[in-house]
């Protein structure tokens, strides 16, 4: 994969110019371009492995975009987003399972059409998040962290001990699901689907945060009392943001299962929730391009360090510790400068 170089130019400091040539716009543009062009180059060179790796980056980034909406913009530290990622994955797996053998699931036939799967995944994740959020958002601080973790563990143990869909062995997806007019088995086409989904999720976040809703969500994070004084109740604002956040992460999970051709309880594990948080923090909390930068860095570390040593997570731990203790801005803060209105 192409190495990432920060394309910073000294004359483009944020304070001097408000043009599109600002440093942060350059950095963001380069991130997106690398994300899009690296797999195209890999495809031209016939390196399918790297195309799939890029799909992985895009999906992990998208899951983190969802989490970033909750943590970064909403101030809701969810330690249980694996629940939605995994549920999305299981929707793909279960739908494909029933489409494969023609049986019914809760009176409905399975489908191998991705559009139907995505719709189901987004709706189910939204419903689950509505239920979990309605209970969890009554609590604050550490209790919120813990209760979201507990709900995700509940889903994890449920998937682990429910025998119909593989239990702890997981559920293989024998044939990748289809999309009308597109050959989803082609690695580059599948990457482009993932990339489009990622960009749309970022555009949605950006659009949302520039709306009145986004202003209310920001104020719910910064000063709840002040929001209430303005006549807006913080609870529904937070709940809606939490649900949208879960839907984005869930859709990423649905695609992720198709990418791997496999879904297992590990997609629901608390380690995954932790890793998504790590990606959000590595990239930069509450920054639109933070999750993308974080995901690129995370998967690169996993691939490069993982190639050198089996114990790469030891070094991931050290890096993460360093970032948390000494570099609070994350990669995006370091590359693109301090946070501004994005």
């Amino acid at each position, binding site marked *: 994969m192409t190495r990432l170089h920060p394309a910073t130019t000294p004359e483009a400091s944020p304070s001097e110019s408000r043009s599109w040539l600002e440093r942060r716009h350059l950095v963001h543009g380069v991130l997106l371009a690398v994300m899009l062009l690296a797999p195209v180059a890999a495809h031209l060179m016939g390196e399918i492995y790297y195309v799939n790796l890029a799909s992985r980056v895009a999906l992990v980034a998208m899951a983190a975009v969802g989490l970033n909406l909750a943590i970064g913009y909403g101030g809701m530290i969810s330690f249980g987003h694996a629940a939605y990622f995994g549920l999305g994955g299981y929707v793909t797996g279960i739908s494909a399972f029933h489409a494969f053998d023609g049986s019914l699931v809760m009176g409905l036939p399975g489908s191998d059409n991705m559009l139907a799967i995505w719709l189901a995944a987004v709706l189910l994740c939204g419903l689950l998040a509505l239920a979990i959020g309605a*209970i969890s958002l009554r609590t604050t*601080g550490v209790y919120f962290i813990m*209760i979201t973790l507990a*709900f995700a563990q*509940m889903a994890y143990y449920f998937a682990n001990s*429910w025998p119909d869909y593989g239990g702890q062995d997981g559920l293989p997806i024998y044939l990748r699901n289809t999309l009308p007019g597109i050959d989803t088995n082609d690695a580059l086409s599948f990457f482009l689907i993932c990339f489009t989904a990622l960009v749309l999720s970022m555009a949605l976040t950006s659009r949302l945060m520039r709306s009145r809703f986004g202003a209310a969500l920001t104020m719910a994070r910064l000063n709840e009392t002040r929001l209430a004084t303005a006549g807006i109740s913080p609870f529904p604002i937070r709940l809606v943001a939490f649900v949208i956040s879960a839907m984005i992460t869930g859709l990423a999970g649905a695609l992720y299962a198709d990418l791997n051709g496999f879904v297992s309880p590990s997609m629901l594990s608390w380690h995954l929730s932790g890793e998504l948080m*790590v990606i959000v923090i590595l990239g930069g909390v509450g920054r639109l391009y933070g999750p993308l930068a974080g995901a690129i860095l995370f998967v690169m570390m996993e691939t490069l360090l993982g190639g050198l040593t089996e114990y790469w*997570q*030891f070094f991931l731990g050290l890096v993460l510790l360093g970032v948390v203790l000494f570099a609070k801005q994350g990669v995006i803060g370091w590359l693109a400068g301090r946070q501004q209105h994005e």
Partner: protein
Amino acid sequence: MSVTLLIEQLINGLQLGTMLFLMASGLTLVFGVMGLINLAHGSFYMVGAYVTALATVSTGSFLLGLVAGVLAAAAAGAIVELLVIRRLYHRQHLDQVLATFALILIFSEGTRWLFGSSPLWLSPPEALSGSVALPGGSRYPVYRLVIIAVGVVVAAGLYLLIAHTRLGMRIRAGESDREMIGALGVNIRRLYTLVFALGAALAGLAGSLVGALQSVQVGMGEPVLILAFVVIVIGGIGSIKGALLGALLVGMVDTLGRVFLPALFGQFMSPSDAAGTGTALAAMLIYILMAVILAFKPKGLFAAHD
């Protein structure tokens, strides 16, 4: 289901409860006094078990191994507090979660690096390997009863420490007003290190004792850690009394649920369905319990403070 089974499972639940209390009391103390949420607490559990296993093999004495394990966990706790944790007291919860998540990765992968992925074996001492008769005729291993006894003694000791010693007084003072005890001339940094090391030692003790029942391996602390979180959230974070009650509640509900739920569903379902549904539900039971309690009491049963 027989009375014997019920008694046996009640004792099992009690044993899980006492071990959870050892884990949860450290977590809740650290949160209560320092306001820190520590995901790496399970790592001290693992350190205790590993050092006990290694020291027992090299000295030939389980007791010496146990002492070594507890001391090692306390030392690891003190070192981690000095190097990392004390930089986190004034940070947001998010930073604390991530830094201690990083510590888990470092501890787990470091241990795997040193000792490999295959488990170490630690068996209970010869003198405790027998079993005693329970009312109803079945037999119960002595070692498990000893674990319960140790747990009860430690709980009592912890109560005495906190309620009747100078250190305990400072801990309680630290829980109610951190700045004030600093202003009154208590060396607050040393107090924090002590409390953290004490919590780590308790986790190490739990790990060592349970390590002899199960296998000693990387990641062994994580399921227990999450259970301990459920315990302190149910009990009210920062409350030792809440931790005790929560630990017993979770220990009992989890143990009894796993045994009796499948049987209960068997009354009105086919055996295979009942096994599946019952097992799945039993695994989720304590989380359901926690969600229900938090839905009605968002700060747990005995909240100290947020």
